[in-house]
């Protein structure tokens, strides 16, 4: 029994390549490294499709890890046509790409393409993590119609940064200045992002191996562990200009909350967000605790807005067979069934 457990444990650790992103999908638009994927529903039950925006520092396959471990699959099974803007892996030639570019040249254009493909006029936009921050800004600046906005573990208020308060203070006082360094190297390498995230969450991390050892006889758990572990280590590089803009405007100056955020020189007014809004964060998330997410509730002009705090960690909600129940129920109540469509 013990031998089998250790053999399974070591077997899982030596697993070379594990396939991810297996749901049926079609590329409908490509630009630079970005792809707009279309995931058709098994049987379309709602008029408004779902448009997903994922973070710019991780790979989007966390939303579609494997059959029965896929949020995207849970959307398509529930009858929602789904679109995902996957930003791809930026290269050195993209070093001048800014957050403004991500919003206006990729997200907004992809949204228009998805609208065109779906032959509809509005969608439910769901943003995850940093993708949710971008989704918030996009929803505030776009002239496109948005039916619903859902923000999942998306940082908005950076004044409540969970750790390294002295570093944050130095950054805010202008004592730590890394713009020139980042401009010089051009791109922020994935390892910078990986170890930076790890510093905030857990500089030393081995408990997931103990969790694997504990349940290594469970093949389903092993499969899920392998895929989650692959994703955790799979960061992508970030254009230097986008990184500097994130650090200066969003983190240091906290412009979403304090005001003064501009996209292509136009001031962003979050009161422009009037669509129905669902914000959710998780109880055990050291990277984006709920204090960073909740303040969006006071900024928007939406009348129908809900904040939900779930059990679980940063990525635990997306790698399941079904949507988290409150989200499923909320979506069901806020989308138009195809039969009712006139």
């Amino acid at each position, binding site marked *: 029994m013990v031998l089998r457990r250790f053999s399974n444990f070591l077997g899982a650790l030596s697993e070379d390549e594990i396939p991810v992103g297996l749901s049926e999908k079609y590329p409908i638009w490509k630009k630079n490294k970005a792809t707009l994927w279309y995931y058709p529903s098994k049987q379309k039950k709602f008029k408004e499709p779902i448009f997903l925006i994922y973070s710019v520092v991780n790979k989007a396959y966390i939303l579609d890890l494997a059959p029965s471990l896929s949020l995207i699959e849970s959307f398509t099974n529930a009858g929602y046509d789904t679109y995902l803007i996957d930003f791809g892996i930026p290269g050195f030639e993209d070093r001048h790409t800014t957050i403004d570019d991500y919003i206006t040249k990729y997200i907004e254009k992809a949204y228009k393409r998805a609208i065109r493909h779906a032959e509809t006029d509005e969608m439910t936009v769901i943003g995850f993590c940093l993708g949710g921050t971008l989704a918030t800004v996009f929803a505030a600046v776009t002239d496109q119609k948005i039916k619903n906005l859902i923000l999942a573990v998306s940082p908005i208020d950076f004044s409540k940064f969970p750790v390294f308060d002295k570093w944050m203070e130095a950054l805010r006082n202008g004592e730590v200045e890394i713009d020139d*360094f980042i401009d010089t190297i051009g791109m922020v390498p994935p390892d910078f992002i990986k170890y930076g995230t790890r510093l905030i969450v*857990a500089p030393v991390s081995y408990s997931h191996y103990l969790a694997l050892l504990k349940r290594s006889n469970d093949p389903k758990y092993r499969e899920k562990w392998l895929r989650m572990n692959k994703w955790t280590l799979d960061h992508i590089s970030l254009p230097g200009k986008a990184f500097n803009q994130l650090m200066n405007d969003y983190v240091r100056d906290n412009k979403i909350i304090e005001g003064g955020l501009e996209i292509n020189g136009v001031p962003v007014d979050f009161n422009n967000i009037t669509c129905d809004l669902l914000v959710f964060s998780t109880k055990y998330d050291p990277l984006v605790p709920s204090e960073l997410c909740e303040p969006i509730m006071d900024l928007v002009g939406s009348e129908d807005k809900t904040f939900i705090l779930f059990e679980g960690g940063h990525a635990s909600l997306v790698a399941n067979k079904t949507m988290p129940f409150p989200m499923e129920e909320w979506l069901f109540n806020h989308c138009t069934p195809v039969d009712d469509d006139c």
Partner: protein
Amino acid sequence: MGQVTLDVYDLLKRGGSFLQFQINNMIQNQLNNYSLIDVAKSQTNTLTKKIKKVQQYTEQTAAVLNFPTKTDLSNATQLILQSEEKIDNIDEQIFQMAKMLHEMKELVEKIALSHHDTADSPISASLSEEIAKQEEEIATLQQEMLHVKQKMAEQKEQLILTETPSVDPYKVN
């Protein structure tokens, strides 16, 4: 009396997680201090200057030896990206035109019907014919745009492959 089973692995996980939490707290507290911030402050500038110098030498050497540098290749790729952006915008405009033509066609048919005109009457027939011709041309244009976009994507891939050394610090294996 119920029997209590001791799960060693569960204990190991709980104990290990607690210890990990303690170690991480300690590391984060140790790193969160002003002396380290001072070191970072002073060393970042020095490091940046050194990297800039090396980049400068590389550019100068490459210019003398007639080698294209990563910057040269990325500049060429950026030109393709700019063209791709423009093609995308044109494609969007063509789509809007096609949509408008389609609406016009429907309108012509509606007007013809409301005036008890038949679709075979000379005016509506010639209008419909003209619109159909335009639609055909637009469809051809859209196909050509798609072809150009594909060609550009291939060229871009080629340039990126040339630009990317065998060990790319920006890519995770």
